[in-house]
């Protein structure tokens, strides 16, 4: 009797053992020879721009991003101007992803009839796993050209139309919901309006994103000016907005005191004052087209 009991126990044990063994066997087999991979952080921002300024995000290889930025007039213009909705200013542009880490773009703004172009390169990409890097580092350089008529013939030279900006973006996605980036930016204008204006300016961009739902997020984009501002004239740009994603579009609705839609313009030419209600509603619309088919997974 004792022996039978012993045997029965042994059998039960064996069966139980066999069951737990097969249950996660596949998982064990996989983890045995799994090499650590780089798990890149994605969707730090929904768009390649925070609102006005560049974000740490890239559009991806072979992707063409058609961007329409639209700014209405100032809210404090009152009901006769329908709180600014009667006026409009825009920038139309194309960005193209040459590789995962390299994007070029051109655009033209109605504000100052300005054409701008830029190159954006990712030096480091935040990732977990193999040799983790805690933040992303991006370098951006751009050039702007004013194409308005210059009435003063003494100043009518090609180089007087040009401006440049260089920027380093250091950003980190903290968990799923929050992203913060700092982007020190240097702007140079070959020609300025007044003798007291400085040709060189430095601003420290701050961009943040707080994810609300899977398709919406709150965004902040501001560029406090550290050096070179003409006091009483330059006001630092501050934009607060809302990202909405619908299929192939990213729609960014925001309020801002900045009229300019390239780095040179919004850093050096923002004169509207939030505290006086000189802000406007604006939106950015982004539509992407796949030029080269994607072959890479999201790892």
């Amino acid at each position, binding site marked *: 009797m004792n022996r039978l009991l012993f045997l029965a126990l042994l059998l039960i044990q064996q069966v139980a053992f066999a069951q737990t063994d097969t249950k996660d066997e*596949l998982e064990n*087999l996989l983890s045995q020879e799994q090499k650590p991979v780089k798990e890149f952080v994605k*969707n730090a921002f929904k768009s390649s721009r925070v609102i006005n300024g560049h974000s740490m995000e890239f559009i*991806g290889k072979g992707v063409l991003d058609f961007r329409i930025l639209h700014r209405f007039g100032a809210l404090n213009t009152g009901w006769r101007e329908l709180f600014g909705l009667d006026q409009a200013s825009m920038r139309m542009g194309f960005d193209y992803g040459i590789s995962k880490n390299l994007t070029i773009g051109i655009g033209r703004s109605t504000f100052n009839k300005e054409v701008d172009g830029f190159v954006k390169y990712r030096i480091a990409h935040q990732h977990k796993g193999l040799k983790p890097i805690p933040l992303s580092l991006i370098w951006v350089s751009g050039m702007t050209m004013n194409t308005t008529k210059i009435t003063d013939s003494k100043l009518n030279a090609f180089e007087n139309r040009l401006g440049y900006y260089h920027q380093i973006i250091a950003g980190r996605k903290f968990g799923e919901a929050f992203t913060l980036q700092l982007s020190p930016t240097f702007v140079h204008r070959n020609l300025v309006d007044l003798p007291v204006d400085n040709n060189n300016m430095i601003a420290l961009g701050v961009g943040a994103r707080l994810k609300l739902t*899977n398709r919406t997020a709150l965004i902040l984009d501001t560029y406090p000016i550290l050096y070179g501002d003409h006091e009483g004239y330059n006001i630092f740009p501050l934009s607060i907005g809302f990202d909405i994603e619908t*299929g192939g579009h990213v729609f960014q609705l925001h309020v801002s005191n900045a009229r300019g839609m390239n780095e040179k313009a919004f850093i050096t030419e923002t004169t509207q004052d939030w505290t006086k209600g000189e802000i406007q509603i604006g939106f950015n619309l982004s539509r992407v087209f796949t030029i080269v088919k*994607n072959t890479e*997974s*999201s790892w």
Partner: protein
Amino acid sequence: MKKVLLSLLVITAFQVNAQKYLTKSGTIDFLSKAPLETIEGVNKSVAALVDAQTGSLDFIVQIKSFVFDRQLLQEHFNENYMESTKFPKATFKGNIENMKSINLTKDGEYDAITSGKLTIHGVTKDVKQKGKLLVKGGKIVLISNFSVLLADYNISIPGAVKDKISKDVKVNVKCTLDPIK
């Protein structure tokens, strides 16, 4: 008595050494056909394990390994629909119910009745499905085509894209498994 014990041990030992088949590079693709848009994703690193003795069948599918022609779709798939950081993998744990009637030593095509638990997007459902099992030169090929109703797995489609994403998605499985030595 000792003989019984011995034979029992031998049987158990045999069970443990029973032939198993494994792949880490199986293919699963899916197709969403909606009035305005057809979306296709392909995953070529699906892991699958078959135990010939018990008939147990397991799949592990890494969600991030699905590749789409359009990167934005891939991003949305991971971020908005499958939430791949929260639910990194889909799994199937079950059995080939008619394993006994399949002769793995003889090349041929067999019907395989599978049943088990399918987990997608953190939701587990009992499923039963008929598929094909091909035996080819010592390897086995699993083929199955079925539909997944997104709502069953708490994957919601926002109103704005309801004409672009199908409510049920066609899934095709094709995995070639090699015997484990």
